[in-house]
C-alpha cells in the first residue's frame, strides 16, 4: 500500500513536470524609454489613475500582464533615447523582443535587417495600417512595409504661463494668448514681456542641449519652404533661411529673452515655478502641466495654462517638425507562441492608444483623433492642429539622431556666441554631409 502511494506520488510529480512547460507563461522582453516611476505606479493597473508618459506606460504594461496570464512581459527601462544600448544589444545578439523606437530612427535598424516587418502579424490580430493616421502610417512604413506599431505623433509646443502673459499684456480680449506672427514681432513681444514681468519670455533647456535647437531649426526651415533634405544623402544648411532662424534665436539669447543655463529637468522646474512665459517642450508634458494647473497654489494655477503649436513666423508652409513613437519588434527566431504573444502586446497597445494620448501626444489612430473622448481632453482644441502641421524629415534620411547632435551643437555654438553664425552653419553642413557620405 505504501509502495503504491509512493509510485502514485512519483507519477503525479512526473506528469506535473511534463505539463509545466505548457502552463508556463510566454516570456517577452520589452525595452522602453519614457523614464522610471515604479515608486508611484509600479503595481498600478488602473490606467485611468495614471498621469504622464511614465505613469501611463508603466500602468498599461502592468495591466497587460494582469489581463494576460499566459504572457509575461519583463520591462527594462533605458535612458532616453536608448539607441546606444539598443545598437550594442543588436550587435551582440541580445536585442529585446519589443522596443520603443522613434519613427525617425526606424530606418537605421530596418536598413540593416534588424527589425521584423509587422504587416502579417498586425493583420493576424486585426490591426490594419489604414486605421493609422497618415503621419503615423508614413512614419512607420519603410520600403512599403510596416516596421513599428505607431503609438503617437509628437511635436514641440508653446507651453504658456497665462498669469505672466496677462501681466505682460499679451492676452486677447477672448482670453487667448497673443502669439507672434513674424520674427520681429516675436522679439518685440519678448521685450514687452521682459519689461512688464522682469522675467524671460522663453524657458528653454539650453545647457548642453542639442534636440531642442535642432527641432527649432527644422520647424522654421519648413516654414520658409527650405527643402534642406531634398537629397537624403546631402543636406543644405548653409543657407539664408537657416541664417535667419539662427540669428533670431541668437537675438533672443543675447537680449536675455530666455533662460540660459538650465538643463531639461531644470527648465521644467523653472517653468512650473513661474520662471518665464513660454516653455518650449513637447506634447509629452501637456498632461503633467495640465495636472499642475489644476493644483492649487502652483504658478500655473494662478492664471492658467495654455498650450499652442509653434506660431507661424514665416510666409512659407504651415508646418512644424514632428516625429512619432513606435513599438518595433526585433528580427529573431521565435516559437509561434512567442510571435502570438507579441501580436497580443501590439494589439493591446493599439486598443489602448486613447490612454496613451492622455500624455499629450497625438493619437496614431484616426478613430481616436475623431473620438469625442479625445476631443474632450484638456487643450486638445488648440493642439489638434498639429496633426496637419506636423512634418518629419524625409524617411530615407539615416542617422537622424546623430545629425540632430551635430546640428544642435553648431546652433548652440552660434547662438551662445562661441562661433560666428556663418562659420557654425558651414561647419554644421560639412559635418552632417561627412557623416552621411560615410554611412
Amino acid at each position, binding site marked *: 500500500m505504501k509502495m503504491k502511494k509512493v509510485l502514485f506520488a512519483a507519477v503525479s510529480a512526473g506528469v506535473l513536470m511534463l505539463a509545466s512547460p505548457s502552463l508556463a507563461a510566454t516570456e517577452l522582453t520589452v525595452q522602453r524609454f519614457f523614464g522610471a516611476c515604479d515608486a508611484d505606479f509600479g503595481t498600478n493597473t488602473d490606467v485611468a489613475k495614471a498621469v504622464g508618459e511614465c505613469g501611463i506606460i508603466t500602468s498599461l504594461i502592468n495591466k497587460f500582464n494582469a489581463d494576460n496570464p499566459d504572457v509575461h512581459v519583463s520591462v527594462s527601462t533605458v535612458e532616453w533615447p536608448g539607441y*546606444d544600448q539598443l*545598437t550594442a544589444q*543588436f550587435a551582440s545578439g541580445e536585442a529585446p523582443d519589443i522596443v520603443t523606437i522613434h519613427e525617425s530612427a526606424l530606418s537605421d535598424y530596418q536598413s540593416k535587417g534588424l527589425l521584423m516587418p509587422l504587416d502579417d502579424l498586425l493583420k493576424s490580430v486585426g490591426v490594419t495600417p489604414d486605421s493609422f493616421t497618415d503621419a503615423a502610417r508614413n512614419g512607420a512604413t519603410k520600403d512599403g512595409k510596416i516596421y513599428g506599431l505607431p503609438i503617437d505623433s509628437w511635436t514641440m509646443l508653446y507651453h504658456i504661463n497665462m498669469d505672466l502673459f496677462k501681466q505682460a499684456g499679451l492676452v486677447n480680449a477672448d482670453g487667448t494668448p497673443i502669439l507672434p506672427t513674424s520674427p520681429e514681432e516675436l522679439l518685440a513681444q519678448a521685450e514687452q514681456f521682459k519689461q512688464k514681468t522682469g522675467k524671460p519670455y522663453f524657458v528653454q533647456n539650453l545647457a548642453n542641449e542639442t534636440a531642442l535647437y535642432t527641432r527649432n531649426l527644422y520647424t522654421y526651415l519648413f516654414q520658409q519652404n527650405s527643402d534642406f533634405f531634398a537629397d537624403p544623402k546631402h543636406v543644405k544648411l548653409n543657407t539664408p533661411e537657416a541664417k535667419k532662424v539662427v540669428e533670431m534665436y541668437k537675438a533672443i539669447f543675447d537680449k536675455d529673452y530666455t533662460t540660459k*543655463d*538650465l538643463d531639461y529637468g*531644470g527648465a521644467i*522646474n523653472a517653468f512650473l515655478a513661474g520662471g518665464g512665459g513660454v516653455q518650449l517642450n513637447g506634447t509629452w508634458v501637456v498632461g503633467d502641466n495640465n495636472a499642475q494647473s489644476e493644483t492649487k497654489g502652483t504658478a500655473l494655477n494662478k492664471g492658467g495654462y495654455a498650450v499652442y503649436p509653434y506660431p507661424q513666423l514665416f510666409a512659407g508652409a504651415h508646418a512644424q517638425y514632428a516625429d512619432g513613437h513606435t513599438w518595433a519588434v526585433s528580427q529573431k527566431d521565435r516559437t509561434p507562441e512567442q510571435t502570438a504573444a507579441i501580436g497580443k502586446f501590439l494589439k493591446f497597445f493599439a486598443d489602448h492608444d486613447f490612454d496613451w494620448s492622455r500624455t499629450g501626444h497625438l493619437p496614431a489612430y484616426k478613430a481616436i483623433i475623431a473620438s469625442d473622448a479625445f476631443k474632450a481632453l484638456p487643450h486638445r482644441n488648440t493642439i489638434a492642429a498639429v496633426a496637419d502641421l506636423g512634418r518629419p524629415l524625409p524617411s530615407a534620411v539615416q542617422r537622424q539622431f546623430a545629425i540632430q547632435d551635430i546640428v544642435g*551643437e553648431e546652433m548652440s555654438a552660434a547662438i551662445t556666441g562661441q562661433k560666428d553664425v556663418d562659420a557654425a552653419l558651414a561647419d554644421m553642413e560639412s559635418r552632417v554631409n561627412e557623416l552621411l557620405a560615410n*554611412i
Partner: protein
Amino acid sequence: MDDRRATPRTALPAAGARTASVDIYAPQWRNFIFVAPFLFFFTTLLLVPLFWGMWLSFHKADTFSSGNFVGFGNYIRLFHDKVFLQSVWNTFYFVLLTVPTLALIGLFLALCLNRRTRTAAVLRTLFFSSSVLSVTIVTLIWRIVFIPNVGLLSTIYGWFGATAPAFISDPSLAMIGIAIATVWWCIGLPMMLFLSALQQIPQDIYEAAALDNANRWQTLRSITLPSIKRTFVLVVIVQIVLQFQLFGQAWLMTRGGPNNLTKPIVLYIYDTAFRRWDLGMGAAASEVLFVLILMAAMAQYLVTRNKAGQA
C-alpha cells in the same frame, strides 16, 4: 649544501631503484597548463581586440558589418575632423588641470595628516572615502552642486545676491567643473601614496635636523620633499595615464558640451563608433589614444629606469 642548492637537478633516488634524474627547470609542455588560463584571457580579451581594432581602423566598417579596406582613409578623415582635434586638446587640457592639482593637493593633505592623532585618522578616512564612489554617484553629487537656480552653489551665491558661475554650461568653465569633480573623486589615491612615502622616511634624519636647529620649512625642503621625489613622479605618471581616459564624468555632467568643449578622446570614440555607427573611424581614434597612452607609459618606464640607474 651549496652544491645541492646549485644543482637541484637530481631527484632523490627511490629506495632500491635508481630512477632517471629529472630536470625540474627543463621546459615541459604540461607546465603550459598553469599559464593557459591567463594566456587564454590575455589573448581573447586583450591581444585579439587589439589587433582587431587595428584591422578595423583600416576598414570602412559599421556596427553590423565590416566593409572595404580604405587604407589610411579613416586616419585622414580623423585628422581633418575639427571635433577630433578639439577632443585631443580637451584631453590634454583636462590632464593639465587635474594632474598637478591632484599631486599638489594630495601632497598637502598627506603632509597635514601624517600624524598619529584621532582627528588625522578620521580626516584621512574622510578624504579617501570619495574614491570608493562610482562615477555616476560622483557626477550626481556635483550636478547637485553646480545645477543652476536650485544647486548648492546657486543657493550660496543667492544668499549674497550674486549669480553662481555656470560650471556645467559656460564654455570657459565646463571643463574646470569636470576637473573639480574629478579632483574631489580621485584625491584619495595620491594622498595615500604620499602618506605611505612619508611614513617610510627614517625618523632619525628629522632628529638630526632638529639637533641642527633646522626650521620646519628647511626640514620640508631639504628632507621631506627629496625623500618622496620618486613617489611624486609615480603619482604624476599614474594620474596622467588615468586622466587620459576621462569618459564618465564628461558624459554624465556635460555630454561633451557646450559644443564639444568638454568632449575627451574616449567620448569621441564612443560617439563615433556607437552613436554614429562609424566603427572604422572610431577604431582609428582608439589607435591614436593607444599611442598617446603608450607614450605616457614609456615615459614612466624611462623615468623609473633612470632613477634605478642613479640609485
